[in-house]
């Protein structure tokens, strides 16, 4: 008997990256990992760049999905779970060279900046997203 599911959508400004029924969605919130099961209380949190995990049910079979996501938001509603991010990439969509280049460029730019500023935080977010992509791509191969 599979667990109860809830409609789940992973949305970027460019497209709906994933749409399906999930048993569990785990995102990296600003305060640590947050997991959402079906019938979770209404809930909204900001997400840090990281790896978003979801257990989904496709054609009656459970499946585990992983996406490297940039910063965004995760919202649980009575009838659905929504994750909004700028970019979401599954392991097979990750361009490791591009991720590596983003990482190096952001690290280089960040050296010129002072911590605790908006610019610094912006570069940090790029660094974290690049790291998440590299981690996920690495785990897959």
């Amino acid at each position, binding site marked *: 008997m599979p667990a109860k599911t809830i409609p789940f959508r992973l949305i*970027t400004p460019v497209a709906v990256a994933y749409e399906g029924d999930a048993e569990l969605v785990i995102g990296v919130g600003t305060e640590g990992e947050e997991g959402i099961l079906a019938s979770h209380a209404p809930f909204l949190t900001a997400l840090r760049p990281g790896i978003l995990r979801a257990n989904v049910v496709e054609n009656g079979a459970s499946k585990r999905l992983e996406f490297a996501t940039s910063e965004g*938001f995760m919202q649980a509603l009575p009838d659905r779970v*929504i994750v909004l991010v700028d970019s979401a990439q599954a392991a097979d969509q990750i361009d490791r060279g591009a991720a590596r280049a983003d990482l190096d460029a952001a690290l280089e730019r960040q050296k010129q900046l002072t911590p605790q500023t908006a610019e610094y935080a912006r570069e940090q977010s790029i660094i974290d997203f690049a790291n998440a992509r590299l981690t996920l791509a690495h785990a897959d191969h």
Partner: protein
Amino acid sequence: MWPLDKLGVTSSGENRMPSVRDLRDRIKSLKNTQQITKAMKQVAAAKIRRAEAARKQAQPYADALGEMLRDLMDAVGSIDHPFMRPGKEGAPRGVILMTADKGLAGAFNSNVIREGERYAREGGGVVWYAVGNKARGAVRRMHAEAGFSESLSANEKLALAQDVAAKVTDDFNAGKISEIVLVSSRAVSVMVQRPEARVLVPVAKDATEKKEEQKGPRAEVEFAPSPEAVLTRLLPKYLEFTIYSAMLETDAAFYSAQLIAMTNATDNAGKLLDDLTLAMNKARQAAITKEMLEIVGGAEAQAG
């Protein structure tokens, strides 16, 4: 009717009818022009579909973001975010002027630029943030201060929107500008585009709460760590996305305007061709008649 002397078919110096050859050349070149406008019309029609598809793809994000913002605005009592406070007094206003990169779309770009200039005339200084080649050119011509200048199609739109948002946010937070205004074209319908100036920052609290009455009370929402903290992250995203979605709208509206402009140009060329063809036939007939008269006249002279 089309006055022929305004079409560049004026006869060489003398005041005579354009010759058949003049008219034939003119018709040939006009047919070429018509072919170009027709091709541009077809290209615009195809690009509208693509631009509309991109807008449709962004819709789920827009809906979800709007809903989150409404929930947050309901939950926060007072929030101390720079975007919610009035900007620095006396500082110039920041205007994001957004146009297409190319012309040949009727008054599409100049309408947007005129709206921007109208807004700038309301007083106080203005720092311009130009997005789109036509906006860049306009800002350069005004010899005004430009905080940012980039073409629209040369970049990935989302990354560009983030760059623009980052730049205006930094300037706003540093007190270089007192508000963030977006001047861009709204696609009212496929046929109608209207330039509009929108104040994005400071955020008007009631602007996000319009539909609240019909919805009824929502369940108590839990925020992690707090509604204020989430809102602090969401407001910059909202700004970014608003700029991104204005870019998509500018794209769609531009191709609609170009489709209309090129349809009109093709139709006008058609009318002009009809008139010129008629004029050419008349001129040819006149030449034949004249020749016949000369022959007849010559024959009669010989006989007489």
